[in-house]
């Protein structure tokens, strides 16, 4: 009788611990199963249209805090990850990781040359949105918002998005990794008129 009761108590405890453990360690297998650490390809020049193409491949591919790896099947393969958890291993970049990859930058902040990163290369880069806003790093400069054009960025201390197109009313179509609840997509935004946002440009475009 006592043995049976011990077994039942132990079983319930075990199930409870497994459940708690699972809840406390949420992660997906996307990064582990798909992403790589391949070195980037040095590139002699980049164009704004070329970077727009790079950005569009990330569209609909989800969002991952501190992430930077995605495929091109137009869906988030790891939806509903917990917010701001770098360890969840999901698909997509976050706003600054997405910008780093689209702008084809180097992991070395003093290096302004161009690096072509594969979509499935798991890399975030050294910059936060706040770093970009300040124009930190050799490739990045702050510019007046009125002079921003396609594939320039608008950055606040907490977010950065890239200008995909401008609208006649002064707003912009922004391509951005917005958040876990939104993924990566193009939205019309009024960042240009928001004083929290500054204009940022990657230097060295060929066209």
């Amino acid at each position, binding site marked *: 009788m006592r043995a049976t009761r011990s077994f039942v108590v132990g079983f319930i405890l075990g199930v409870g611990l497994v459940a708690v453990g699972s809840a406390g360690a949420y992660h997906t297998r996307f990064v582990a199963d798909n992403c790589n650490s391949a070195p980037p390809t040095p590139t002699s020049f980049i164009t704004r249209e070329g970077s727009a193409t790079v950005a569009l491949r990330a569209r609909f591919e989800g969002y991952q805090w501190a992430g930077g790896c995605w495929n091109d099947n137009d869906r988030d393969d790891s939806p509903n990850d917990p917010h701001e958890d770098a360890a969840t291993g999901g698909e997509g970049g976050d*706003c*600054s990781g997405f910008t780093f990859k689209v702008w084809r930058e180097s992991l070395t902040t003093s290096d302004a040359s161009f690096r072509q990163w594969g979509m499935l290369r798991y890399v975030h880069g050294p910059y936060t949105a706040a770093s970009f806003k300040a124009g*930190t790093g050799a490739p990045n400069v702050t510019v007046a918002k009125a002079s921003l054009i396609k594939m320039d960025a608008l950055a606040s*201390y907490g977010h950065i998005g890239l200008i995909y197109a401008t609208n006649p009313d002064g707003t912009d179509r922004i391509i951005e990794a917005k958040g876990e609840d939104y993924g990566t997509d193009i939205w019309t935004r009024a960042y240009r008129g928001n*004083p929290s946002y500054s204009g940022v440009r990657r230097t060295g475009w060929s066209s």
Partner: protein
Amino acid sequence: MPEAREAAVATVMALGLLAGAAGCSQDGGGAPTHLLDGSPAAPPPVVLDAPMPQIGTKADAVATSRVAKGSLAARCVASAPADTSHGPAVERIGATGVSVTFRTASALLGCDGDTDPGVGDSRWCGRALGRLEHGRLRDPRLDAAGCATPAGDTVAFAWFEPGPDTSYVAVGQPGYVEVYPVVAGLPVRISTTSKIDLQESRVRFDVSEHDAHGVLLGSSTLDARVAG
């Protein structure tokens, strides 16, 4: 008994070697002799249950509504979004980094520096914004992009949230321990020049927490990644 004596001798020899290394390293990147503001590096007010030597950092809480013009806090708060500060700002001066931290209604804001804050043209080399959820940070907001020592080594900053009984946070540095007093209940903006993985955009901070008497409460590794 002979074994015990041998062990004691070995321990003393090891400590001597470590002390010698620390002493030599003052010229080669070990325990610093000064903080960034030029003041002599001194031990913390209490000796912590942590490796030696221990260097105390300065921390001061000032009301954001009454910050002195030109002060560290004023220069940080002034550049933040308008009328958003709640409570005090904490100024910190360490051996390789200076910082200011203050709270808004929904976030923690910070400024990071790598030069003597008393020098007129000193500027922030980093900024941080951490969203608060139920009063706690979801992410330590690692900044490892813009700050460096005069020798060119990266200085990385992150917030550490101490436990309720913690009075001092100690961070392991190459050849010494840097000690941060907990002030005004705000997360502590710690910095380091070691264990920085630029390839992974990731930094590991070796941290221990101590009570007001220096007693060790716990130790951990803050594994911070660049994000957002």
